[in-house]
């Protein structure tokens, strides 16, 4: 049988030669992660800022719920979204089950709490006087909120990156909602699962390497961005 060294060598070959299979699954994973992160950021960042900047009844309950949802198992999100998108479920008419947009919906729900909660804490950590000062300088309410968001941009960026990483690396939602259909909804992580099942360790390892490379490059970019303005 294939030794670990063989598998590793074959995996490297697949990565270096940009094997079409590796490229396809990696491309799909990155597309899903990008789409889900954009939607979740657009929804979650403003909500996070609003919760951080306003005092209202039930605010603490909202924060507790958000923090609880941070650690929600991906298979639970997958199962819930599957039940809704199934033809026998309430949103069955959408026809989104076993499609890439269907996976994106699930991933958005998975990372929305991450983006919102991390934004919330980043904004809360920013100087509380920023908003007051901006208002005193004659800014409108919306402009003041915007300034607060800009001031806490590194925390918010960290939230976005954490969310992206969560989508790229998770397997529960992609498997259950996507169905792992080859050439349609098979992603890097679900391809790893099916290739390990079939004993094709090399391809699985190659995909694992791409996954690691993606996380590494995201974090390098983040570090560079942070370094630039801290000087």
């Amino acid at each position, binding site marked *: 049988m294939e030794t670990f060294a063989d598998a590793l060598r074959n995996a490297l070959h697949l990565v270096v030669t940009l094997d079409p299979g590796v490229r396809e699954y990696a491309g799909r994973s990155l597309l899903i992660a990008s789409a889900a992160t954009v939607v979740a950021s657009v929804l979650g960042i403003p909500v996070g800022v609003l919760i951080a900047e306003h005092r209202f009844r039930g605010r603490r309950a909202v924060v507790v719920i958000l923090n609880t949802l941070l650690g929600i198992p991906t298979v639970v999100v997958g199962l819930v979204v599957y039940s809704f998108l199934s033809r026998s479920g309430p949103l069955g008419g959408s026809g989104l089950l076993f499609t890439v947009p269907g996976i994106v919906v699930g991933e958005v729900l998975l990372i929305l709490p991450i983006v919102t909660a991390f934004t919330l804490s980043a904004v809360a950590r920013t100087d509380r006087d920023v908003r007051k000062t901006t208002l005193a300088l004659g800014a409108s309410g919306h402009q003041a909120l915007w300034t607060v968001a800009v001031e806490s941009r590194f925390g918010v960026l960290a939230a976005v990156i954490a969310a992206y990483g969560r989508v790229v690396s998770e397997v529960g939602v992609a498997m259950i909602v996507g169905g*792992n259909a080859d050439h349609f909804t098979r992603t890097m992580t679900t391809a790893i699962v099916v290739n390990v099942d079939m004993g094709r360790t090399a391809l699985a390892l190659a995909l694992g390497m791409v996954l690691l490379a993606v996380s590494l490059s995201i974090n390098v970019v983040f570090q560079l961005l942070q370094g630039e303005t801290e000087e």
Partner: protein
Amino acid sequence: MPRWVGVVLCALAALAVSRDSSGATEQILVLATTTSTENSGLLAEIHPDFERRFGIRVKVVAKGTGASLQLARDGNADVVLVHAPEEEERFVEEGYGVMRRAVMHNDFVIIGPEEDGAGVGSAKTPGEAFARIARAGHVFVSRGDGSGTHLKEQELWRRSGAALERREVTTIVKGGEKTFESVRPTGDWYFEIGQGMGKAITAATERRGCTLADRGTYYALALARPPRTDLTILYEGDERLRNPYSVIAVNPRGQPHVNFEGARKYIEWITSPEAQRMIGEYRVGGKLLFHPGAMPAGSE
């Protein structure tokens, strides 16, 4: 209205459009099937011919027979390719499936480590082979996933006379409650993994255990280069180990959204002489994986 609401709506609209455009330019047929047909590589080999002829792309969701039929009952598949005759008959009787046709067959084999610690190889029937595994307390890996292979395995445990644990599984389907009995032998040597055929074989390989496998998936792993398993066939050839595959269209009555036209074309295609010839020519390591076995239309 805050500006971001507009952005969200645009993003959702873009998502919807991208979905619509992919649906408009190409027709998609959702095939729910067993892991064995996909894991053996057969479908990837023959589907390009169907896609070329009809311009319909086949989306394969490989889940095991029980789960595939449930997907179809829920309206999430257009056509099924499965291997559990009794389950298939019930599916058709319940009104969920139409146009059931035989496609091909292979057989189940009992595989395990070459040294055959339980003496499976000298058994006279598959039931006796299982009885020997139970008596020896030999490691056995079960699919445990309600698949066609798992159902066949349970049938063999019932025949073996080994001590069994019975479990009632109640599910609610549209017609009301249905209760199925599932059995497993008692003993700490029996592992239910709840996963596909490929995984069961690799798990049995790692644990040095026996398992019931369909010959196609076993060959796909054992004859691959390099081989993915070193387990050998310990018992084979009994009539009770025959494994027939059928194709069934999901009844559009009650599920008006299903691609019934595509399913009809698929069934006609896979039972046609051309597709049957491709099934008969598909080999791994020089071995035939599936015997074509479609009957002419209307003869069943």
